[in-house]
């Protein structure tokens, strides 16, 4: 996109919307770093100070950042790192190793990754290290040779730290913490985790070498903060090519945040979860509804997307079942009521269904047993019912005990929404005991 020099340019609306989408999508999806982290100033300062001491003074440190999912752990770390690297000296000397518990599933892979990220693979390549132990010994040797004053500091980031705990003997963690404890090459070990009890998972020897420095990121956001966040996420910066469009957009966002119905919806979201990532999903849905013909977000959009967001998935699935399958579910509900949640099998369900058919004069739903079984198996495939024991092959299919994984209210609600539900079936569902 060409940059226009003049201030008062008027870009066509289509292009404006495209720009807007591009900008906001990057913000929402890629979790772009904000200018200043919000609400975590103290933690930010703490971590920055810690890492700076490692980078500049050669002090070895270890720290754990603990917080819920979507609580901004990575964001905090990245913004600290960015600020740290602004310093020219640090940028030149600091070496980084990023590990992720999801990817480096055992110590061997992790070790390979460390060698690679420290650009040691050509050094290792000559010596042809076969075994894990040799490789580790070499790495440790390299780290040990260094001392506080001369060697370059290394920053280890362990994302999903709790997964590293499950490695055999916790060798990697032990060695990293050990290096950070003894006077060897200066390293900083930063772990990111969402488990509060992560220290309980460490072995004793590993735990004793860890500095027990923890940074907690527990969201203390209040509702006004939350609304502020919505506004800030949708706000267009002054660098937007078309000033007039940006101004209109910003005004519409402001009006949106002050709207009463939107506030109710946001309050509901806030009450269900404070984390910002679910908010981003909501905004993403709303943003996708912005088009050339409608270049702003209306309260109705938020209402609609929130309805979609809070929709009960199981109720959605129940809506698509056939009448026969619905009848089976109602029969299961009655069995559940009658026998107090005891597990049941297909024979009992079918029997219950037959009892209903007998009371009714018309035989419209008089299906053969195999047809009923096919419907029953479909329910099992959808995981609306769960077999009690997995020894499926050993018992006959019609006698296998299952449990219903639906709530009574869910069933009744689905029944209300079911298209063209026969009245007698509705009545049967409402009657207390079959």
């Amino acid at each position, binding site marked *: 996109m060409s940059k226009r020099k003049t201030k008062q340019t008027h870009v066509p609306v*289509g292009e404006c*919307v*495209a720009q807007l989408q*591009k900008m906001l*999508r*990057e913000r929402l*999806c*890629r*979790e772009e770093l904000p200018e200043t982290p919000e609400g975590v100033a103290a933690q930010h300062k703490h971590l920055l100070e810690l890492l700076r001491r490692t980078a500049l003074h050669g002090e070895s440190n270890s720290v754990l950042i603990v917080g819920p999912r979507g609580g901004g752990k990575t964001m905090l770390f990245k913004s600290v790192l960015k600020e740290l690297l602004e310093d020219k000296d640090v940028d030149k000397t600091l070496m980084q190793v990023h590990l992720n518990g*999801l*990817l*480096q*599933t055992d110590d061997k*892979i992790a070790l*390979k*990754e460390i060698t690679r990220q420290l650009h040691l693979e050509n050094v290792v390549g000559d010596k042809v290290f076969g075994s894990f132990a040799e490789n580790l010994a070499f790495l440790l040797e390299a780290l040990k040779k260094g001392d506080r004053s001369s060697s370059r500091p290394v920053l280890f980031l362990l994302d999903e730290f709790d*997964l590293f705990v499950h490695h055999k003997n916790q060798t990697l963690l032990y060695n990293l913490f050990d290096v950070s404890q003894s006077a060897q090459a200066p390293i900083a070990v930063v772990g990111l985790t*969402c*488990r509060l009890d992560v220290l309980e998972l460490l072995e004793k020897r590993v735990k004793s070498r860890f500095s027990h420095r923890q940074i907690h990121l527990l969201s203390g956001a209040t509702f006004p903060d939350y609304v502020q966040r919505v506004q800030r996420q949708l706000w267009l910066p002054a660098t937007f090519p078309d000033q007039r469009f940006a101004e209109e957009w910003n005004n519409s966002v402001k009006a949106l945040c002050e709207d009463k119905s939107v506030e109710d919806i946001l309050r509901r979201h806030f009450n269900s979860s404070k984390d910002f*990532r*679910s908010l981003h*999903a909501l905004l*993403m*849905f709303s943003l*996708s509804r912005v*088009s*050339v013909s409608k270049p702003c977000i209306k309260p109705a959009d938020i209402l609609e997307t929130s309805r*979609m*967001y809070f*929709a009960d*998935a*199981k109720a*959605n*699935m129940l*809506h*698509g*079942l*056939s*009448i*026969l399958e619905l009848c089976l579910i109602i029969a299961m509900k009655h069995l559940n009521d009658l*026998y107090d949640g005891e597990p049941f*099998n297909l*024979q*009992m369900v079918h*029997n219950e269904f037959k009892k209903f058919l007998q009371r009714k004069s018309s035989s*419209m*739903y008089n*299906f*053969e047993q*195999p*047809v009923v079984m*096919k419907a029953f198996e479909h329910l099992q495939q*959808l*995981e609306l019912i769960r077999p009690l024991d997995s020894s499926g092959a*050993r*018992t*006959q299919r*019609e*006698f296998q005990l299952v449990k219903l994984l639906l709530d009574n209210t869910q069933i009744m609600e689905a029944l209300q929404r079911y*298209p063209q539900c026969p009245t007698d079936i509705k009545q049967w569902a409402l009657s207390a005991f079959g």
Partner: protein
Amino acid sequence: MTGLLQHPGYDEEKLQRIAELLPCREVQAGLLLSLMGQPEHHCYPSIFIYGHQASGKSHVLNIVMKQLELPHAMVSCVECFSVTLLFEQVLQSFFGADASSLLPRGPSLSDFVRIYRQLSSESPTKQTRYIIMEKAEMLRDADANLLPALLRLQELVEDNVTVILLSEIVWDKFRPNTGCFEPLLLHFPDYSKGELQQILSKDKHPLYSAEFYSSYINILLGVFYSVCRDLRELRHLAALNFSKFCEPLEEGKVKESDTHKLWRNIEPHLKKAMQTVYLREVSSLQWEQMQELEEREVGAVRGLSAHTHVELPYYSKFLLIAAYLASYNPARTDKRFFLKHHGKIRKANFLKKNEKTSNHLLGPKPFPLDRMLAIFYSVVDSRVAPTASIFSQISSLVTLQLLNQVSHDDQLDAPKYKCAVSMDFICAIARTVNFDIVKYLYDFL
């Protein structure tokens, strides 16, 4: 109709074609496209789409990706039973055929991410890449790290990539213990009756008019809709039975407009189809042959379940009958049934039963070998020596899976069995040896 599918950044004509190719799915396709945004825009890291079987999940994505020529990898999780296959397929469809040769043997997720990064930095595209995983419920059985890693793949590989998961099962059953990056949830609702009618009426026969075919579909849905809403299944049934529907027309008996007569002709035929072809008792080929032959009554060909009848030796039959009686009768009634001079058992006490304890509802109960042999000797008229052959017949009944051995702790001393045959089966067997089994069953007293 076209209003829903107007998205900047995509070719107008192609969108038009998509709208034509996706009947009754414009809303979903439009929603999906608007979530995807323009090709060079960033997309949300993961999208989870759920809906019933044959509600057009894969179809919509296939058409959209193919028609708009977006870079995508279509992966079926059933095919990719190991992660190696999955990685290979993704790399091949993004970076060309020889990309997967970079993967080492037995690659880990770490290798995959490293190679993906390397390749994507060599050949960057402006467009969003899409990885579409069909039957995503299989991912839950794979390595525990795979699903969380895929959900945040965008962050891990630092490329504009979106993972789209398709499944029949709701998202709540996917969530791992320690949580993960939550995808956007999208629901594909089921087709309503009108929509099914509309879609099925599209593949009409060239020889007949559209209204004629449409009325046929109407009758078909009238019979099958209460049982089956699967578009694929219905389409299959429609194709199979259409020739039968046209028969009176070809013979000149009725006119096209005579709907009632056509309905009278086809309805019993369709009802038979529900018990045979729908359950795959009779294969589609057999069904077609039956329609051609016509002299044989429909359903006269024995289906699969009719073949369950097996030829057994004389004593094996009695052993099986004894096993069935032991499984489905309470032990306290044995005296009354099988002993000649059993003293007095109070009738009220004997017939004390309620619904819940009926064994034909609860399934077979395990019984010890001794009890079964006792019943066996009581029901067989002649004197049978307990030879090795009798005992080997018992164990061969277990291998045939007509009996199940329950507890594996004691093979020789006191083995326990369960009878695993149905009521119809045992009645058929009893008939061949002239034994009235219903008289001996407690549930039918």
